[in-house]
């Protein structure tokens, strides 16, 4: 019984890691409808920024996290201005091809700039170690991840659903020309939204190093999981992405605990079943 409680906590924490990584993708792929295969590459940019700032420059943890978001946002914005914006009107498949090109370049560039070795990250003492709650061990860093995830979810939902910025983006995605004719600079709006998605990617990448590790192969390794989380949740719905991440995390960890022989089979079967029954996602309307 106690084992199951621990496992559940493990699953929830894993779900939060997935959500932190997928949150940004939910904006660029889900909301803006851009088939962004380079999302995890932007997460890697954030991850390396944080790890190098802490390890080499001695920055404090939280400052390095913030900088990870900023750097990824800048890189994302530059990519959007120079490359991605040309393809907003193109087919999804051309977007896939372009962003896969970016992924290849990112992998080689990371190998060249940082080296192929595994990147370590040092977390401050207040995040290290365990909190004991009776018989249950709670890892401080995982609690921190859960806290960050909740904060992120609340602020994003607020931003998208309760601010004019969010309303404008939703309007622009729904009908770009109409929005532009209302005097809104759609071009700038898209750039901002993409930078936001990239910042979240960078933040998620930096936060997840301790659990997932970081090396130049990162942009490919977690791509499929993120794509599934965002689409099972429902394109364009942050709440959906959150729900799907939780479901994915918990089912994955509990499944491996109870039936290690079957492993990740359960999670893909669940995703397939959910997508078949609800192609629009857990939270989402048919468009």
């Amino acid at each position, binding site marked *: 019984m106690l084992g199951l409680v621990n496992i559940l906590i493990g699953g929830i924490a894993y779900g939060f890691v997935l959500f932190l990584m997928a949150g940004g993708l939910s904006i660029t792929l889900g909301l803006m409808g851009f088939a962004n295969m380079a999302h995890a590459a932007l997460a890697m940019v954030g991850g390396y920024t944080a790890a190098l700032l802490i390890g080499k420059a001695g920055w404090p943890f939280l400052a390095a996290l913030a900088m990870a978001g900023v750097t990824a946002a800048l890189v994302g914005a530059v990519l959007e201005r120079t490359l991605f914006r040309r393809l907003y009107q193109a087919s999804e498949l051309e977007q896939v091809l372009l962003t896969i090109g970016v992924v290849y370049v990112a992998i080689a560039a990371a190998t060249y700039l940082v*080296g192929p070795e595994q990147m*370590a990250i040092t977390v401050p003492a207040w995040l290290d170690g365990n909190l004991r709650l009776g018989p249950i061990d709670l890892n401080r860093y995982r609690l921190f991840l859960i806290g960050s995830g909740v904060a992120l979810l609340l602020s994003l939902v607020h931003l998208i659903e309760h601010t004019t910025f969010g309303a404008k983006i939703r309007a622009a995605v729904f009908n770009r020309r109409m929005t532009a004719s209302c005097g809104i600079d759609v071009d700038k709006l898209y750039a901002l939204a993409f930078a936001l998605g990239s910042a979240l990617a960078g933040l998620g990448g930096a936060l997840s190093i301790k659990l997932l590790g970081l090396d130049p192969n990162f942009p490919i390794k977690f791509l499929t999981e993120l794509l599934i989380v965002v689409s099972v949740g429902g394109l364009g719905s942050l709440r959906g992405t959150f729900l799907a991440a939780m479901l994915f995390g918990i089912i994955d960890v509990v499944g491996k605990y109870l039936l290690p022989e079957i492993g990740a089979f359960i999670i893909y079967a669940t995703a397939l079943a959910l997508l078949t029954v609800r192609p629009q996602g857990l939270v989402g309307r048919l468009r």
Partner: protein
Amino acid sequence: MIAKIVIAAAAMLAATACANAEDRPLKIGWLMSYTGPGAAAGAASDTAIEVFFKKFGRTIAGRKTEIIKRDTTGPAPDVARRLAQELIVGEKVDFLAGMDFTPNTMAVAPLSTSAKVPLLIVNSATSGILAKHPYAVRFGFTTTEMAQQLAGYASKQGFKSVYTFVQEFEPGLDAEAMFLREYKAAGGTIAGSVRAPLKATDFSAYIQRIKDANPDAVFVFMTASELPPIFLRQFKEAGLDPAKIIGIGDITDEASLPSAGDAALGVVTAFHYTQTHDSAANKEFIDAFKSLAPERPVSFVPVVSYDVLRAIYQVVEAQKGELTPDRTMELLKQIKFESPRGPIAIDPATRDIVQTIWFRKVEKRDGQIVNVEFASTPDVKDPGSAR
């Protein structure tokens, strides 16, 4: 089975090799993963090649050495096989060397056999590769020999029950089977066994199963990569003591040890190479390596790569540059020298490595997390698969 034509063609290749050895370079096809999950090891082997050239020169017995590097892109046997085929047919290499992932080696070995090109294996740890392939030699290690040593260690330590955790692929299954057999034979109890797929990146579920069983020790084999540090950190986060882990040295490989950090302190492993190994040969190797790549960790892959090249030079020298595959194999079976890891030799009967296996514990020394040797078993041979 593969045509007689092939054998004839290979013989022809060998004949032409003898005819113009002077003006023909010594070609070594070097198959490693330079991208994908094995990229760090590939990069480290490259530095080892440079170290080797610096010490032993770029010519041997009048032939200029040319190392043709090809990227196998990770565990991708069809890629490895195609590259090996092109190296044999197109480049007409004298040696095939490198090899990291077992599936790649298994795909390449039949080509080495049918074309009679000696294959010097740096790191594929499955026991059964060599028997069917008379032109293959292993310079790395097998998981079976390490598991056997660790089973002995576990019973000597008086552990009553041990849980086993391995990655589910050939070397892992070999390790698990050998550990179970030897440890049970010594009177120990297996508290349980669980296997994770190679692709698994989150281990909390497996670790909880270990925790539930509450064993005295946990036997772990995971191939050297980014994953062991994640396992070690999650192990500690689950409130378990890292000192309970006994494992094959891949899990505390020097390349990934810094990323595991304090979570690795106390872990006991058995392995063939330790960076802190105290010998003149090792010091010389590390100094040369660090002068070329100060940031790059020295681990077992570059050391074995270096040994493989040394062996190639020895057999080329002994034949005065006039190579025939069978003479080369005969000479390879007599290889014996002091490596940075300790004394090594090739077992003439099995073409497998004979070496000292070191027991190490992870400690903190001058602020660095390192493996420290505390015991050893000399002249260990691969015991063969227990499956």
